[in-house]
């Protein structure tokens, strides 16, 4: 057990507490956060690549009821796949931004910064990102159905709109993360006060 207060800098946001604090906890947070930061940084690059590859290889992907990726039986021509890719760009962009925010958040944890204004901002952005991803995905669905049915005979075009449990789950989780950002902001104020209490 080490008295952190004596040798850690009093920069607001740094992990330090009054009295005794187990050094191993900080090391653990930094170590695990480093792994998460690397993982999310890689995902930022992988997600757009995977998105492109998905539509390029769509017709060759395995099909079936239990395969999440491709529930549809049809093959799509190149133009349709390009349009579907474009329709999904906004929600993919939101997802990439969310993952990037996570990478930045864990980068702060990696440096031992827990209650800074940046932490609060990343949590808030992440919450809105989750909600935004749900909304953009919801809006993309009718667009996708229009694209898929655009070449159908007259009278057989369709629009689908859906709101399933996954969308509801995303909405709830996003709201909770925004709430967490408010709690973190209170933590930031307490931390800030404590840093300047001698």
């Amino acid at each position, binding site marked *: 057990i080490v008295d952190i207060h*004596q*040798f850690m*800098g*009093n920069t607001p946001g740094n992990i330090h507490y009054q009295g005794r604090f187990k050094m191993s906890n900080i090391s653990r947070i930094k170590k695990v956060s480093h792994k998460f930061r690397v993982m999310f940084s890689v995902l930022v690059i992988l997600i757009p690549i995977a998105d492109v590859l998905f539509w390029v290889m769509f017709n060759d992907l395995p099909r079936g009821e239990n395969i999440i990726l491709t529930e549809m039986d049809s093959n799509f021509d190149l133009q349709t796949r390009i349009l579907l890719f474009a329709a999904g760009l906004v929600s993919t962009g939101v997802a990439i931004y969310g993952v990037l925010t996570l990478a930045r958040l864990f980068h702060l944890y990696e440096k031992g910064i827990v209650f800074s204004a940046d932490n609060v901002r990343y949590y808030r952005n992440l919450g809105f990102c989750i909600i935004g991803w749900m909304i953009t995905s919801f809006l993309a669905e009718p667009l996708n159905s229009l694209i898929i049915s655009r070449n159908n005979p007259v009278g057989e075009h369709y629009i689908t709109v859906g709101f399933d449990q996954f969308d509801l789950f995303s909405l709830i989780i996003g709201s909770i993360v925004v709430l967490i950002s408010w709690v973190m902001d209170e933590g930031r104020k307490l931390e800030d*006060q404590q840093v*300047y*209490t*001698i």
Partner: protein
Amino acid sequence: MSIVINLDVILAKRKMKSIELAKLIGITEQNLSILKTGKAKAIRVSTLNAICKHLKCQPGDILEFQDLENTE
């Protein structure tokens, strides 16, 4: 903040350096600097106790209230 901490004056009178006082009272030099430069938002009674003990002074010797709002 209207409470001014006049540590520099007392340190000069006692011919003591900041780093010495910081070691004696058990805080970092950085924290002492926060006190001296008026950035502190609060001071613990234990810290004030230690400062007065080692500088052989009263709290009133280092703490001064300045009504900045009315003087402006």
